[in-house]
């Protein structure tokens, strides 16, 4: 039977390094130093605005769009980091671990859907744009937490039972 694709297990470490470094940069630099570290740069874009703040700009196609660390690099790096953490092989990967992963995935999709619906109903304007981004990160985070807890329980459950 064809197996589900997963990254090699050392990708989990790479994932932790990427996401923790990005998060620390975001927290320390952007929050404590009042957006001084939120550097601007330009990205080739399919659809974008010619200037910042992009709310007031005119929609243009196939341009070099101005953007910043928070709006572009932060979510991309966090998603890459979380995906590496979430979808790397376990050292004792087998069909039961796949089952635990599947259960954790279903659980986190359902919880995220509830949070997403609440966000759509309760949050409007530019804040909504950021909240939707964070909702996806939150989904990956929820999945990682649920999966790690279940794997921890699974590993611990068998410890006392060996004879």
């Amino acid at each position, binding site marked *: 039977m064809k197996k589900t694709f997963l990254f090699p297990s050392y990708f989990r470490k790479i994932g932790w390094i990427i996401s923790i470094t990005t998060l620390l940069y975001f927290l320390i630099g952007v929050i404590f130093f009042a957006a001084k570290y939120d550097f601007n740069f330009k990205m080739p874009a399919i659809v974008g605005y010619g200037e910042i703040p992009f709310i007031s700009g005119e929609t243009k196609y196939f341009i070099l769009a101005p953007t910043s660390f928070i709006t572009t690099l932060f979510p991309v790096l966090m998603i890459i980091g979380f995906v590496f953490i979430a979808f790397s092989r376990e050292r004792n990967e*087998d*069909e039961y671990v796949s089952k635990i992963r599947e259960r954790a995935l279903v659980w986190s999709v359902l919880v995220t859907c509830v949070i997403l619906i609440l966000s759509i109903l309760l949050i409007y304007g530019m804040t909504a744009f950021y909240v939707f981004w964070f909702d996806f990160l939150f989904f990956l985070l929820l999945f990682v937490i649920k999966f790690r807890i279940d794997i921890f329980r699974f590993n611990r459950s068998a410890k006392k*039972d060996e004879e």
Partner: protein
Amino acid sequence: MKNNIRVERAILKISQQELADRIGVSRQTINAIELEKYIPSATVIMKIAFVFGKRVEDVFALEESDWR
């Protein structure tokens, strides 16, 4: 689904780890199967029966709840 893996292991005098190694799953998975917390795939069920030198139905048995 019920099973008598623990009994069969005792007859062959092999540990959970040895059985796990022969089948290619983790020891924790063998433990979960023994405790009937997890019903393994057909492949693993057949491998377990093969290791014990028994037929599948001599090691595993359906319960009433499996039909619901």
